[in-house]
């Protein structure tokens, strides 16, 4: 009964989406207030219907209703409760429902909190949002219905892919989707603005918080995904330039560019056509990601089960959404040219360069992701693009971006004088140089590029701190006055400082853990030991353990430093009988300076052969997670910032050195 109700709710949501897209668009064109106002009610109803459908699916998972095909294919009665819950979106159909639910959530958000928007703009935004929902609901009902029944029901389910049985699954996809889908609203705002023919600072003020929400969620989602890969896949890495990782990274790069140029529209009314194009592209890249993950176009460890029919359907959706919006852009955007004039060296000029570099970086990732596909289609040659490609393109491209990132916040709008700005950064620059040299000495040399990036990481943190100190007029006025300025600092300002400094911390972690990683592979007998990075690991014994839905071999490794025991590492090798799949559970000892990471490899039944152990020492890995967390906190602070009008008033009250 419950699955049928969920199914009906989906059908109703489809009908509501249809009317929510058609009536308000017509009303906005005719200036009919009632038709426009219909969008608000429809958006709320649609959210409630989809929330109900989603709850129905979760319920089917929680009670292990094996009359539902989706539950049979992805669940098992013995599965721990958390994974029954999270398993509802650990598959193609369920994740699609979550996707559409998020879409409706953002629509409802505009209906509830967008009261200050002009009626026609709000109606058009909600109508475009409903058009996207319409496409995806039709896709779901036609090819991917999560509520299909099966008869006769099997006794038990086929269980969830063991790699996905991880607490990260509960949070990683919802945050990622919150990011992807959040950009749908920015897209809707862009298309609505093109239809309205009006893009002004007010538009930018309305778009900015939604862009920030999407960006913050995407940042958190990507970081969680990297963390999941780090401890679950057992290779000791956190990023593999896999197509599915790339398709989440591209919207992030483009979204970061968007976040910066929206503020130019807000302050100076420049870059309007570019901002609208970027808003369309960010969501197009999100859609492209959805398409790639679900169509089997490219191969990836994360991809869902493949069905060519679904691929054609999503491609048709892509064609309408991206092709349609770009066509509207080609038609209406030429009227948007112009805006405030500025000199090349200025805040605007800096942000233009920022956007250019981020777009090119995003373009290289797109090229690397799609190149194998297009090469295969044209020449029939099969290749795969690995990290070497990105190390030679993306990594060098990010150097000027990171250098600029430290300078940008010091540049005033309209025109800047570099001879006045650069001396203020001299301290930060020389300190960064010192950090780079120190890193090279401490970590025992290394490639020039790695040392450079350690310096750049320090540069981001230090220049952000200098900028903050200047705002507080630290050491120029009494400390107490500086402190009172600290508490009075606008949250938006905090957002920028934290995001920039957090990125610096994360880059230090990324660089150190990729370049100065140590690795040991050794077959050990109980009682034998191996040494890595000053640690001595002794295999005491290996025992068999039984989990709720798996069996495992667990190695006990005693960790000692100079003979003194500091802990125990227990890597496991699990076997999930239902999915007939082995997984490794790495054991990780986390410290600020680096992680000790142990994996139990293939073992043979012959005790004489010993146990294969792979052990890594990964410097500064935790900095990646801390850095991204700081960026997310910055995003949250900026989202919670007061209304722009009041911020503007506060800005006038406190003189700021840079503006």
């Amino acid at each position: 009964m419950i699955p049928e109700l969920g199914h009906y709710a989906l059908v109703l949501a489809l009908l509501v989406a249809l009317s929510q897209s058609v009536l308000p668009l017509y009303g906005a064109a005719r200036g009919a207030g009632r038709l426009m106002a219909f969008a608000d009610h429809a958006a709320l109803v649609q959210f409630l219907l989809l929330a109900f459908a989603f709850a129905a699916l979760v319920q089917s998972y929680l009670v292990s209703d094996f009359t539902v095909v989706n539950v049979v294919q992805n669940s098992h009665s013995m599965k721990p409760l958390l994974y029954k819950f999270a398993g509802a979106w650990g598959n193609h159909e369920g994740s699609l429902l979550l996707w559409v639910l998020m879409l409706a959530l953002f629509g409802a958000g505009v209906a509830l909190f967008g009261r200050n928007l002009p009626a026609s703009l709000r109606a058009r935004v909600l109508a475009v949002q409903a058009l996207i929902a319409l496409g995806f609901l039709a896709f779901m009902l036609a090819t991917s219905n999560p509520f299909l029944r099966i008869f006769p029901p099997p006794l038990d389910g086929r269980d969830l892919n063991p790699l996905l049985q991880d607490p990260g699954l509960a949070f990683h996809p919802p945050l990622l989707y919150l990011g992807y889908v959040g950009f749908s609203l920015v897209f809707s705002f862009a298309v609505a603005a093109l239809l309205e023919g009006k893009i002004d600072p007010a538009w930018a003020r309305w778009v900015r918080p939604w862009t920030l929400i999407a960006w913050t969620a995407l940042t958190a989602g990507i970081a969680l995904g990297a963390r999941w890969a780090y401890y679950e896949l057992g290779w000791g890495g956190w990023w593999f330039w896999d197509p599915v990782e790339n398709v989440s990274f591209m919207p992030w790069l483009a979204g970061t560019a968007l976040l910066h140029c929206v503020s130019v529209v807000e302050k100076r009314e420049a870059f309007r056509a570019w901002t609208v194009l970027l808003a369309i592209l960010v969501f197009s890249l999100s859609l492209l990601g959805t398409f790639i993950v679900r169509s089997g176009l490219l191969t990836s460890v994360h991809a869902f089960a493949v069905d060519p029919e679904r691929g054609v359907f999503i491609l048709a959706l892509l064609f309408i959404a991206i092709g349609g919006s770009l066509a509207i852009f080609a038609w209406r955007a030429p009227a948007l040219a112009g805006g405030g004039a500025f000199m090349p060296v200025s805040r605007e000029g800096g942000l233009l360069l920022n956007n250019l570099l981020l777009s090119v970086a995003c373009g290289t990732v797109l090229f690397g992701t799609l190149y194998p596909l297009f090469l295969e289609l044209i020449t029939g040659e099969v290749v795969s693009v690995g990290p070497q490609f990105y190390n030679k393109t993306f990594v060098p491209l990010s150097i000027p971006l990171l250098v600029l990132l430290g300078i940008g916040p010091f540049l005033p709008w309209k025109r800047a004088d570099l001879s006045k700005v650069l001396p203020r950064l001299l301290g930060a620059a020389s300190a960064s140089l010192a950090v780079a040299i120190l890193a090279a000495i401490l970590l025992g040399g290394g490639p020039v590029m790695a040392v450079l990036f350690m310096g750049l990481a320090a540069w981001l943190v230090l220049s952000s701190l200098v900028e903050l100190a200047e705002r507080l007029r630290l050491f120029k006025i009494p400390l107490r006055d500086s402190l009172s300025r600290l508490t009075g600092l606008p949250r938006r300002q905090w957002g920028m400082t934290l995001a920039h400094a957090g990125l610096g911390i994360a880059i230090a972690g990324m660089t150190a853990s990729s370049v100065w990683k140590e690795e040991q592979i050794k077959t050990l007998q109980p009682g034998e030991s191996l040494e890595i990075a000053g640690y001595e690991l002794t295999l005491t014994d290996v025992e068999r353990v039984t989990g709720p839905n798996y069996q495992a071999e667990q190695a006990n490794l005693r960790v000692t430093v100079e003979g003194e025991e500091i802990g125990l590492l227990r890597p496991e090798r699990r076997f999930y009988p239902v999915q007939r799949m082995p997984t490794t559970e790495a054991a990780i000892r986390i410290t600020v300076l680096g992680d000790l990471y142990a994996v139990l490899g293939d073992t043979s039944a012959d005790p004489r052969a010993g146990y294969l152990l792979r052990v890594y020492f990964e410097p500064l890995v935790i900095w990646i997670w801390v850095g991204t967390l700081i960026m997310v906190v910055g995003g949250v602070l900026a989202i919670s910032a007061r209304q722009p009008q009041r911020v503007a008033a506060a800005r006038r009250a406190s003189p700021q050195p840079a503006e």
Partner: protein
Amino acid sequence: MLTNTKRLLFILPTLIFLAAAVGFLMGLDPDRDPSAIPSPMIDEPAPQISLPAVEGLDLPGLEPELLKGSPVTVVNLWASWCAPCRIEHPQLMTLAKEPGVRILGIDYKDRADQAVKFLEELGNPFSAVGFDQTGRGGIDWGITGVPETFFLDREGRIRYRHVGPIDADTLENAIMPRLREIAG
């Protein structure tokens, strides 16, 4: 007034997207298999190595001449300690009953008495088994783990490789069509 070049600039994103969309549509061809990473071993002669017989097992060891001659020769790398091999075994027993198929085994990093017990318990699909105690054979065949299975044609060339256990479904839908293709 906008110049034509400027107007073209605004149409450019649409044009680029359309070109990409055509590529995506072609990429959705159901005959395309994006996960087929070409193995350097495919269409190459199988490694010519000899491995001794498993002690206590009444079967010959592996010799290079055994890799040729049969319409299809299947080389399966397995071990008694490998749990997925246990799951795969019934499918090998089915394969062994196919006419024109010869199955050779390579017992990878195993103990002879355990291997004998494994085959006594689950049945023997192999006509010869090489004992690869050091794992040297596995390196020559370029395996990523056990089980792994290679399919050779009459000339002893590797025509297909399957990584991981062959379950009933894979046997029916992926392996059997390949066998017919290789046997010609």
